[in-house]
């Protein structure tokens, strides 16, 4: 009976829909960082269509750099204008939050992307293109690998300048992701930044089959996880009758006040909330690469062009953790006692799993992939703290980690032999003897990954563990420290390999990069050391940014 009645009322409510639709109010100035980046991406597409091939590279590079810098300036402007603290509010009809965490994460993503653009644009490293200056991306991605079309494209010195607008689209999605304040915006942002990433993964110049395989894997698994996420969104809507974060949070804490007649059978049903919440979490845990949703990470990190891997490892993680934080702190704080134990478990197996499997890796990119999984576990420990310190420690960790990652992958692009990048670890033996500077820089990054004091890695890990311990998860910290010890083994092993092994006679050479990659690496080192030596200022900054608008 009741179901018939509800179906009936659904029709009557739909029939009685309001006759006027209010025009949405959009605060363009407050959304300007995202709008600038997406606008520039559209302009980039136009450039691809109309500019001659030889001037596209410079135009795209200039456009990307200028737009990202302008967007960053806009973020700074908004933060200076108090939108991070006193004036924090919901923009675009409540779809997007403009608050401290959002601005902090957007600023981080923009800076990271800006540096990633430098590594994307590097054209000094690959010598095998008949004298043409080429970057890490395929000459003609649509051509069959190894086919005549590809050979012709290589000979002609083609490059894929489309990577710049594609990157900008991804960045645009990432900017919205941590700021999304309803579930639909969250989902759309997810797709907006995921799809360009799938494409970017397929564009490697060398080892194209591996690259394409990684892209297909990433796409399939990404689509699979999106389905889970979407299902979770549907269930939550069924539970709360709304997709806005604030609305769901209200139902979670106070129970449904007004039962939507169309959802009378489902609203307030806790099973829906729990299952929907778990599926939503799963979709986000997939993006951050937490165990057991991490399977894609090593394959994709290895196959994707290294600059893309660096960008993905750094920026995706920032965006996804931002969204995860907002979801847990804004939507689900009322059910903290339900999700925390589950997330404890996820954090533990992520830390241990990443660290343990990394021990037996032989490829530097796969090694860094497992390392990123372990780091996702460390960050989760801070996320679970469910305190203001937890938020700020995660924000700090993300900023610190993303620069280290980007720098480390930039160094990986430099070590090359005849087959392109020499990523097998055995080839890195004795690198410290032949190229002490490059090896020393890489050692700094590895020490930061391992969390050795005076690097940003230590400050970040310390902040995260401190927040976790203060929230009562002491044994989570114990597991974290044990994982760090296991992880230190393989980081230090690479250092030992570089500095204390005899160099191989047919070993790789270190390519001399242009100012672009050098800048990226230098910024990485500088950020690592500054955040390690004097972290307090940035911890304070993250602390001030650590309040979500509800």
């Amino acid at each position: 009976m009741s179901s018939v009645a509800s179906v009936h009322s659904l029709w009557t409510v739909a029939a009685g829909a309001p006759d006027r639709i209010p025009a949405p109010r959009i605060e363009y100035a407050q959304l300007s960082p995202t709008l600038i980046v997406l606008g520039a991406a559209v302009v980039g597409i136009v450039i691809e269509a109309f500019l001659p091939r030889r001037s596209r590279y410079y135009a795209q590079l200039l456009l990307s750099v200028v737009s990202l810098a302008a967007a960053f300036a806009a973020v700074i402007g908004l933060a200076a204008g108090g939108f991070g603290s006193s004036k924090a509010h919901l923009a675009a009809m409540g779809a997007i939050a403009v608050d401290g965490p959002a601005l902090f994460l957007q600023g981080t993503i923009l800076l990271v992307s800006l540096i990633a653009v430098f590594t994307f644009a590097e054209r000094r490293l690959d010598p095998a293109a008949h004298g043409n200056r080429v970057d890490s991306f395929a000459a003609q991605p649509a051509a069959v690998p190894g086919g005549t079309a590809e050979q012709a494209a290589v000979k002609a010195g083609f490059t894929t300048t489309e990577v710049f607008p594609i990157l900008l689209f991804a960045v645009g999605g990432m900017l919205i992701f941590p700021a999304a304040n309803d579930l639909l915006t969250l989902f759309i942002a997810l797709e907006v930044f995921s799809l360009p990433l799938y494409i970017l993964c397929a564009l490697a110049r060398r080892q194209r089959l591996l690259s394409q395989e990684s892209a297909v894997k990433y796409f399939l698994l990404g689509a699979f996880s999106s389905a889970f996420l979407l299902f979770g969104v549907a269930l939550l809507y069924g539970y709360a009758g709304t997709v806005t974060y604030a609305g769901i949070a209200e139902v979670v804490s106070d129970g449904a006040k007004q039962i939507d007649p169309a959802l009378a059978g489902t609203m307030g049903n806790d099973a829906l909330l729990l299952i929907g919440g778990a599926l939503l979490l799963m979709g986000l845990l997939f993006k951050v690469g937490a165990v057991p949703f991490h399977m894609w990470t090593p394959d994709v990190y290895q196959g994707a062009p290294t600059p893309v891997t660096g960008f993905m490892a750094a920026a995706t993680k920032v965006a996804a953790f931002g969204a995860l934080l907002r979801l847990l702190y804004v939507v689900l704080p009322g059910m903290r006692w339900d999700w925390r134990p589950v997330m404890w478990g996820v954090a533990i197996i992520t830390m241990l799993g990443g660290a343990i499997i990394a021990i037996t890796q032989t490829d530097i990119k796969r090694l860094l992939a497992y390392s990123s999984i372990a780091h996702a576990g460390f960050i989760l420990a801070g996320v679970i703290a469910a305190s203001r310190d937890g938020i700020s420690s995660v924000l700090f960790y993300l900023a610190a980690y993303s620069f280290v990652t980007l720098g480390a992958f930039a160094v990986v692009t430099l070590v090359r032999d005849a087959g392109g990048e020499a990523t097998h670890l055995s080839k890195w033996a004795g690198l410290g003897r032949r190229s002490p500077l490059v090896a020393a820089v890489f050692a700094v990054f590895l020490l930061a990954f391992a969390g050795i004091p005076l690097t940003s890695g230590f400050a970040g890990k310390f902040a995260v563990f401190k927040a976790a311990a203060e929230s009562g998860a002491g044994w989570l910290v114990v597991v974290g420290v044990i994982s760090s010890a296991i992880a230190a083994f393989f980081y230090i092993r690479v250092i030992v390999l570089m500095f204390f092994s005899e160099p191989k006679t047919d070993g790789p050479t270190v390519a001399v990069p242009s100012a672009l990659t050098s800048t990226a690496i230098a910024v990485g080192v500088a950020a690592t050391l500054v955040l390690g030596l004097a972290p307090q200022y940035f911890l304070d900054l993250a602390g001030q940014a650590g309040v979500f608008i509800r």
Partner: protein
Amino acid sequence: MENLIALLVAAPLVGAALLLCGGRRLDRAGHWIGSLFAVASFAVAVVLFADMLGKSAEHRALHQHLFSWIPVGGFRADLAFQLDQLSMTFVLLITGVGSLIHIYSIGYMEHDERRRRFFGYLNLFLAAMLLLVLADNYLLLYVGWEGVGLASYLLIGFWQHKPSAATAAKKAFLVNRVGDMGLSIAIMLMFTTFGTFAFGPVLASTGATGEGRLTAIGLLLLLAACGKSAQVPLQSWLGDAMEGPTPVSALIHAATMVTAGVYLITRSGAIFNAAPDAQTAVVAVGAVTLLFGAIVGCAKDDIKKALAGSTMSQIGYMVLAAGLGPIGYAFAIMHLVTHGFFKAGLFLGAGSVMHGMNDEVDMRRYGGLRTHMPITFVTFGLGYLAIIGFPGLSGFFSKDKIIEAAFARGGTEGWVLGGAALLGAAITAFYMTRVMLMTFFGERRWDPEEVHPHESPKVMTIPMIVLAVGSVFAGGLFSINEAFVTWLEPVTSFAHGHSPVSAGAVTAATMVVLLIGVGIAWRMYGRKEVPAVAPRGSLLTRAARRDLLQDDFNHVVLVRGGEHLTRTLVYLDHSLVDGAVNGTAASMGGLSGRLRQLQTGFVRSYAVQMLGGAAVLVAATLLMRGV
């Protein structure tokens, strides 16, 4: 004004960074750069001093807080400076004498191809030493403490091509580690006791703390002071440290760094005042060392080692005075400053003699040098008169006060300490007269064919003259109306000691023992010809030549014992610790190898795992609620 404090440390630090990182292109200007930064630091010190003099005594202390390094809970590691009268005294001494010695080194190190590096290390030393005396908490003091240890190590072993220098540097470093361990444990104890490292709160709350704790902290601080200031039982490194270039001996191992222990004890005065047992240990160490060093100084034929023995002995006086509490702190520091002048002058004089004698250090191969090096002779002579306590010169005022204060300790202890201090004064007069006579008087015992003694260049003699002026006048100047005591009183507090013998009697006794010491030396080395090869000597002489068997003792007890202990530990390490570690590592590796099998490379199996993971996640969430 307080913003200038950081500049004191920053100037030499920048200099060190420039010189040590600048590479060969700075080789030609390196010594000028180094000296410039030292002098700049001195100039800032003078400005701050003038400003401080213009204020009333209570408002003279300045603070500068630069930043806190990761404050966590109650733990605060502050980079903050405190400039009060005590620190100011040290800053002036360090930068002043330091600048002079930088300038002197321009001449002394002229022919050394690693001169730039030498000046870099000297600047590094200045920065670390200034950090030590300017820190406003024990943790930062420890940074400076380790920094000067490092600089000392680098400079002792500066001529690392000589195995003896390399060994001496290592020895100094290792012996100092023992003391440093004391300081680090003392700081940890302070944190658990007081909950902070800052001087202010720590020293203010000694009244409310148990005496046992304070005694433990005091003894550990004393251990630290013994290491850095070469006091018995950690004195063995100082003699060997003379392997370093002579300006280093003058600056670090005579005037400044070795006095850091005295600074530490004086700065921690409140702790010692509240822990009488620790104070007794301090005076005992001081009294023993002042005799020990003096006896060693009597037997050495190496001019620098004789002076090193003397340094040990004079610091013994300071430690003794510092152990006497409020009746002694000010005199300890006063003697420290006057000693800084005359001992630095004596070392520079010794360096000047060596410079003119082809780096010969054996005094038995000197003799009659006064006519060949008149300026060195006069400045060295003034330093000599100052150190033996010739009436009117610096050492007279400062040492006399310490002897008086030692008597004022009261009871048997007072008589023993006073007697030891008097005896020390006699021996000081003896060995310094011996050095003077063997070097500048008597027949020449060198071959004029081989060596051509000559006066050093102006860049070396001018610093010597300046220091000689200080040696002559500083003590008198400080004693006018008790100016120095009044100046330090707000920091160290001061009480007049009540000596069982009158001040006049003490002075008279000092004069008598002085004359006895000089007289004996004159009989042995002035009237008789000095043999060019050392005679066998009595048992005591032979023991004193071997530094009173300190190395033999260390070797038998510590080295042998340590070797046995190490062997046992190595065995345990191999069998137990390594076994556990390797076992864990192997099992981790095995686990890793098994887990990576899950990574099949097939997207279908990945998807299944994700599905399984999602199912577990959902199930776990539901389970938590118990729905």
